[in-house]
């Protein structure tokens, strides 16, 4: 009797919170990356069609060969998923329809801070049945953030702006703002009063005299008129700012690897301090 009770208690203790889903489908790039990092390869039934694109997906090489989907409800249902991961601002109708059909849908919001990233990583890890992997990923990210913080500790304040094609920049309340702050940089966009997404003209930027201009472009992005604005030499010469490039792949989907963006900016901040 006592043995049975112990066995029962043991069973309760070792039983996972919920059974790990056997067939996971992701219909959003940002969810793809978390699924690839957290799930067993055998759990992944399908990833979104962006997952294997090295220009957009941080773990593109891991997605090669995995079935891709284009996010239609019928397509997803045909995969017989236990869990569907989706992202904010896309597939609204599809998510509603899948929920109506009784499919469990985990909707990942756009993270606006590293705290959001921690929360989201853990939510995905628990839903996928691997909370320990979530904790490892978050710990990795926090270690990288702490290392970056040590690099810039004690340096005087410097200002920077993330400048994307078309003069688009991100201010208060967005993840990009915190990336800059964690790297010891004051965000010029926030100082200019921009909340969320905004745009800053070249003249305004020159007048604001940032120490660092962070060009948010992929090194081999297809040419566009608005990207040409970024290669404007006048901009760098007139502001005497130090140019840095930071590939959007590191922060467009805020996730554990966004700490790498902080690290790169911290290095740029250190280089700025050493420059004459």
């Amino acid at each position, binding site marked *: 009797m006592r043995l049975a009770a112990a066995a029962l208690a043991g069973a309760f203790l070792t039983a996972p919170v919920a059974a790990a889903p056997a067939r996971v489908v992701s219909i959003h790039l940002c969810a793809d990356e978390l699924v690839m990092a957290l799930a067993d390869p055998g759990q992944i039934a399908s990833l979104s069609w962006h997952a294997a694109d090295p220009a957009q997906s941080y773990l593109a090489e891991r997605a090669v060969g995995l079935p891709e989907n284009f996010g239609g*409800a019928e397509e997803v249902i045909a995969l017989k998923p236990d869990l569907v991961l989706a992202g904010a601002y896309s597939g609204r109708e599809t998510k509603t329809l899948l929920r*109506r*059909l009784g499919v469990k849908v985990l909707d990942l919001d756009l993270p606006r801070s590293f705290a959001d990233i921690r929360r989201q990583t853990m939510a995905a890890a628990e839903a996928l049945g691997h909370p320990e992997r979530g904790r490892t990923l978050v710990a990795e990210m926090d270690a990288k953030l702490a290392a970056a913080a040590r690099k810039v500790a004690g340096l005087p304040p410097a200002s920077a702006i993330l400048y994307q094609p078309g003069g688009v920049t991100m201010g208060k309340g967005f993840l990009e703002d915190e990336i800059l702050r964690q790297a010891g940089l004051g965000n010029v966009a926030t100082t200019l009063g921009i909340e969320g997404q905004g745009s800053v003209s070249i003249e305004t930027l020159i007048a604001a005299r940032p120490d660092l201009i962070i060009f948010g472009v992929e090194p081999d992005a297809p040419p566009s008129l608005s990207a040409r604005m970024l290669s404007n030499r006048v901009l760098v010469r007139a502001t005497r700012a130090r140019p840095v490039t930071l590939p959007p792949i590191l922060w467009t989907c805020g996730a554990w690897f966004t700490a790498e963006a902080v690290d790169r900016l911290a290095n740029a901040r250190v280089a700025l301090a050493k420059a004459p």
Partner: protein
Amino acid sequence: MSRPALYAGLLSALVVLAAASLLIGPAGLSGLVVTEIRVPRVVLAIAVGASLGLTGAALQGLLRNPLAEPGLIGAAPAASFGAALAFYFGLAGYSPFAVPLAAMTGAGTAVVLLYALAGRDSSMLSLVLAGVAVSSFAGALTALALNLAPSPFAALEIAFWLLGSLADRTLTDVYVAVPLMALGCALVLTTGRALDALTLGEDAARSLGVDLGRLRLTLVAGIALAVGAAVSVSGAIGFVGLVVPHLLRRFVGYQPGRLLMPSALGGAVLVLAADLVVRLVSTGIELKLGVVTALVGAPFFLSLVLSTRRAMR
């Protein structure tokens, strides 16, 4: 072609296309997939197509101008703006009713504005001009919402929605929008006799006992309801209201009243066919229905214009 033959042709095309639409898809034929995914899509394609075709025919009759289409009186662009606002303020996330309700509020506001600008007793010309004004104003407001969108993802979501699609709509969308489309269409269908009288000119129509002010009011209200509700579930789907009446006019002896019902059926057939094409040709990311109707509709319309010109020589 006789009238019964025309109706028989359109109805059988509708039945065949609807059946094909219900049977074809990647997820096989399980009951839930058909009732929850494909039925809403087919019902909405028929309702949206019928609304666009019918309102196009009615407006062309009212204005006695073959270039008129539902977008002209500003209801469709205003409905788009209403929907864009629902996305912009994040209301779309709270309730499945948010986007349709916002779109219909937009369409309703457009009609009220239209009446303030071109009241009951003004000419058809001022109605068109007011419609164009409301239309461009709504278009500008939509652009403004895109311009000020809180994040690049939100802007993209609005932009994609505006392209028009029937993908993954639910039965909820059917329950919300179809009764309103039906009501709007019913209002428009009551105007057949008056539209026929109007072909003789406004004065002649008046002497035949047609109340022109009431005709305008009925049509504008009906079109706002039908088009507003249609846009609220599908986004903007172009060219249907323009092309369908053109195609069918010759079969009904060029009488606008007799053109109404065939145009509703023809619109339903066209949208259903276009939606089927979208689903069949899209091996990858699904093409947007509104993109396809305009892409196929525009060259087709051009060839129609050219052949008409040749015939007139």
